[in-house]
């Protein structure tokens, strides 16, 4: 069991509350929009902690006029249960940087597409064991067969789809016939 040292006698609840407070010495007025994007880069997707909400294309815009900060976010799926948590994580990160009342706005238009996942984000997904979306969403045919999906573990293209849906709405389940490992595929939408 961990011992409570004298160095930090705060309870977990205190720490949680403290993380929600604006630090006294913060100077958000000195920050630029670039700095804000850098802060947002630090906010990770709760389901896929390897990639940030910026790399996933969930953050659409950030407006900072020195007084008011607003951030536009878009859900990946209509019913994505992580949407509210992501909004809260973004707000928390911004408050920790000194922004007192960041406005997080949900926008539905234009609808999120996997085309917005950055190349870097796709590489990180692959390294995390999730095959990134293949191709462009606009080229998908309604009843057509999906493209060949490469295994994120061994790179083999000899894979088969096990299920149209995986552990979350945004993924499908595949299996590699070469290295026999199952893997998630980030569906192209």
């Amino acid at each position, binding site marked *: 069991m961990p011992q409570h040292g004298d160095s930090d006698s705060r309870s977990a609840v205190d720490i949680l509350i403290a993380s929600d407070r604006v630090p006294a010495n913060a100077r958000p007025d000195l920050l630029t929009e670039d700095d804000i994007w850098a802060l947002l880069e630090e906010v990770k997707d709760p389901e896929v902690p390897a990639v940030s909400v910026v790399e996933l294309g969930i953050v659409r815009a950030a407006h900072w006029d020195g007084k008011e900060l607003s951030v536009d976010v878009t859900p990946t799926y*209509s*019913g994505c249960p992580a949407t509210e948590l992501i909004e809260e994580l973004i707000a928390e990160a911004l408050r920790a940087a000194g922004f007192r009342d960041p406005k997080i706005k949900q926008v539905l238009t*234009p609808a999120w597409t996997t085309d917005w996942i950055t190349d870097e984000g796709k590489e990180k997904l692959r390294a995390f064991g999730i095959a990134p979306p293949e191709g462009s969403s606009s080229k998908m045919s*309604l*009843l057509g067969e999906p493209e060949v999906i490469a295994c994120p573990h061994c790179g083999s293209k000899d894979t088969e789809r*096990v*299920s*149209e849906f995986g552990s979350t709405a945004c993924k499908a389940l595949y299996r590699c016939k070469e290295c026999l490992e199952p893997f998630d595929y980030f569906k192209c939408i």
Partner: protein
Amino acid sequence: MTQAEALKEYLLRLADSDMILGQRLCELCGKAPALEEEMALMNVALDLVGQARNWYEYAAELINDGRDADKLAFRRDAHEYRNLLMTEQPNEDYAVTMGRQFFFDVYHYFTLKSLTESSDERIAGIAAKALKEATYHLRRSSEWVKRLGDGTEESHRRMQEAVDILWRFTGELITPDDTDRVMAEAGIGPDPDQLAKDWRGMVNEVLTQATLTPGAEDAWMYMGGKHGEHTEHLGFILAEMQFLQRAYPDATTW
């Protein structure tokens, strides 16, 4: 009927159909025939409930009587529900579950596709999001219909039975009423004739590939869901779905 009244009614129909089918699918949680199918069904349900929330939120703003999306979903009774009868039909065997999904998905896909060009921007935005999901649902359910229809002797027999059982509820999907016509004329909702044509075209195509026989176009059709006249199933769905909110109204912590 004014356009404003029709719009509220139309939004509730979209929301209620998504909500009820989502709830129906959730009944299979823990009981689906295979783990992969269970994940798929629950994800489809999640998409539908998410879409329902978007429609309810917009409806609540227009109705503007203090009720929010949750109250519209959990505090209205069966006669106030506007979902299509198809969506409330029981799961039965997997052929019926997938057949119901397929007939609805075709309707849903073409409806949403048209709504992306709605003159109402809020509707167009919600539809653009939902269309991506519905496209995926349709791809999946049509593959199941083909696999079961063109499968073994037994799977074919049961899939054909499912088509026969469900056919009587398909008319409502593509038969317009005054609300639908007002929405179409305002450029908000889909053109009913086009919707019917598209629906029939795709259903016939998939059923043919599945070696299944569709019902007659002039068969007797059950209707009324859009006006709050439901089959006996809806009351039971709502009893389960709304229990908590009815038992503890306005609770702020669950």
